[in-house]
């Protein structure tokens, strides 16, 4: 565990996680809008849609910051 991590070990899993995971997430968001399960005319639904988008970037930021810190700090 002493070698400096290469791309396969550091950023590739991150890209796969938020790329393929992002496809599931985006597909889910599109489905809830298309089905009108998320009704944009209701304030609480708009708030929840924003929370969902925040959550995706929240975790992407946590993982990104941890990888950056591991490699650079």
């Amino acid at each position: 565990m002493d070698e400096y991590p290469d791309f396969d070990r550091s950023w590739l899993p991150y890209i796969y996680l938020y790329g393929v995971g992002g496809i599931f997430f985006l597909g889910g968001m599109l489905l809830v809008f298309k089905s009108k399960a998320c009704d944009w005319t209701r304030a609480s639904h708009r708030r929840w849609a924003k929370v969902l988008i925040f959550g995706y970037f929240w975790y992407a930021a946590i993982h990104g910051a941890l990888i950056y810190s591991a490699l650079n700090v």
Partner: protein
Amino acid sequence: MAMFSLLMQHVAQSGSDVAAAAAADAGSSPIFWFIVLGYFAVVLGFGSYFARFNKSTSDFFFGGRRFSWWLITMSIVATGVGSHSFLKYSGKSFEHGFSGSMAYMNDWFFMPLFIFGWLPIIYYMKVRSIPEYFERRFNAKVRALATGVLLMYMLGYVGIGLLTMAKTLGPILGDSWSLMEIIWVVAVVAGVYITFGGQTAVIFTDLLQGFILLFAGIILFVLGLNWFGGFDAFWNTLPAEFKLPLSNFNDDPGFNFVGIFWQDAVAGSIGFLFMNQGLVMRFLACRSVDHGRKAAAFNILFALPVSAIAVSCAGWIGYGMMTQDPTLVSPDTDPDTVFVIVTRILTTKAGFGFFVAAVTAALMSTVDTLINAISAVFVNDVYGPISKLRGIQHDDKHHLKVAMVASAGATVIGVGAAWSFSLFDNLYEAHGFFHSTFTPPLVACIFMGIFWRRFNTTGAMATFLAGTVMIILGRFLPHELIEPIAHGVPSIDPETGEALSAPFKYIGALYNLMACFGSGIVVTLLTNKENKDLEGLTMFSLTAARRMFKGSEPNDRVGFPQTVTYELDTSLPLGAVRMDREAMNHLAAEQGDLAYICDKRKWLGGLRSAHAYFDGVHNSGETVLLAQDVYDNGHFLPGKLLVVEKEF
């Protein structure tokens, strides 16, 4: 939980004198036992106290759908952390670094479908169990199939939990206790309070346990940082690769990112959010869909990252200790023992007792959630349908008694399952095979049922039957069926070069999901469309689900909660409340709208609350008149103010 048993079993091989001392000390220290037994007394006390809040099966299984999001969140933490998390994640983190806990940080991708799909469906359609959804969505045969699979899965899980706990306590109790005797004692303790306490008891004990678990883990982390002399010293001790939060992409067949992504981030997340009957019951215990959403979101956004630190930090600390002083934590340390070794290094005997109590709490949470869930499935999906077939109608009190008997029965069968699992050499691989074989068909069936209107009954049957057959085939033909989609994960041991006996153990989840989803999709497309009323059962008809829940058109005008005194009015019809005209205007409420009445003290989390409907107005001033059943269900105390809210 299994950490202690594994510590005792492997301590000789691990070569750690500290761990050996911990094992020897634990069973002989009065303060250790005082703390551990004190914890059990508190748990039993909680169960007994909250049992009095059960007046119906709705109370017993769903806590009367009354609780606030924060209470449910902490309860989910205790259930989610689970029985062997401290052992498993500390060990993985010791071996693989921060990536050992990545399974805790990848659950967000399916949240849109849960928050706007599955949660409102089960809540508004009053789905009491997952198999019940299968009958409403498909037919009784699919329900029976789902019931059988789900019961076997959950009973097996109870058995695993009881056995793990017994193996943990065995070495501490000494040779005078046999494994089966310990299993029985553990089962009685777990069974008693769930049998008499029901879901309300579970939620409140889990609230306590959730706090204990997080507190214990974070305290351990702080103690560890202190041992190093601060965070910077700790951080600089660790190599860069150890600090990466995601593991190698596909190099290591024993722990690779891509396999864990499909096994945990996809299959595990869907299974946890959509198929876990215990978790479903937690969300149904929330006072509203919105509170269920808050509980789920807060849990995943904030509680899970904290939980990840709590359950994994011993592995990080242990690795750092090893690099600084290999005589303290040996490089040859068995990863399964690292939590106990680190805990014993950092704490006193009393502190060690506290940590034993904390991880015991984790197991208790898992076991009693499962027992309550089995009881719910038995009453709703076995006893209920059989009674209906025989033309017998039972009242709710009868079902409540059946639920209690079912809880006790589930505990006894769980003991039997624990005994059968004790015959296996490798408990976790046996359970892993069991788990990965039964979960994907249910997951695929629920998922397609909710989100694909075309998905029909024949497709659902194929998902169960053909899907399971293909999963089993995959076990026997891994190179032919799994390797082509294995993303380059090797099937040989990289160190020895020998072929692995069970290759693709993580990436196999992708094949299992494809097998089940594929079976369902192909058969559905090859068979006729069904003319079935799916109102409220898919995410395309949630407006209808809300209307059906209320019984009339929802009223979404924004109002303001009102704080009032209350009076009992026995002349009101069942489920009714009345307020004066001014209060109704402030609430933006109309006759027939749904009301939620709660004790003003928010810290009770909704324990003293009830649902009702507005039945007109009165002229008695700032007070709410309660029907007899609303008063009874709310457990309101004399002289206390209530807050009344309009739901919709």
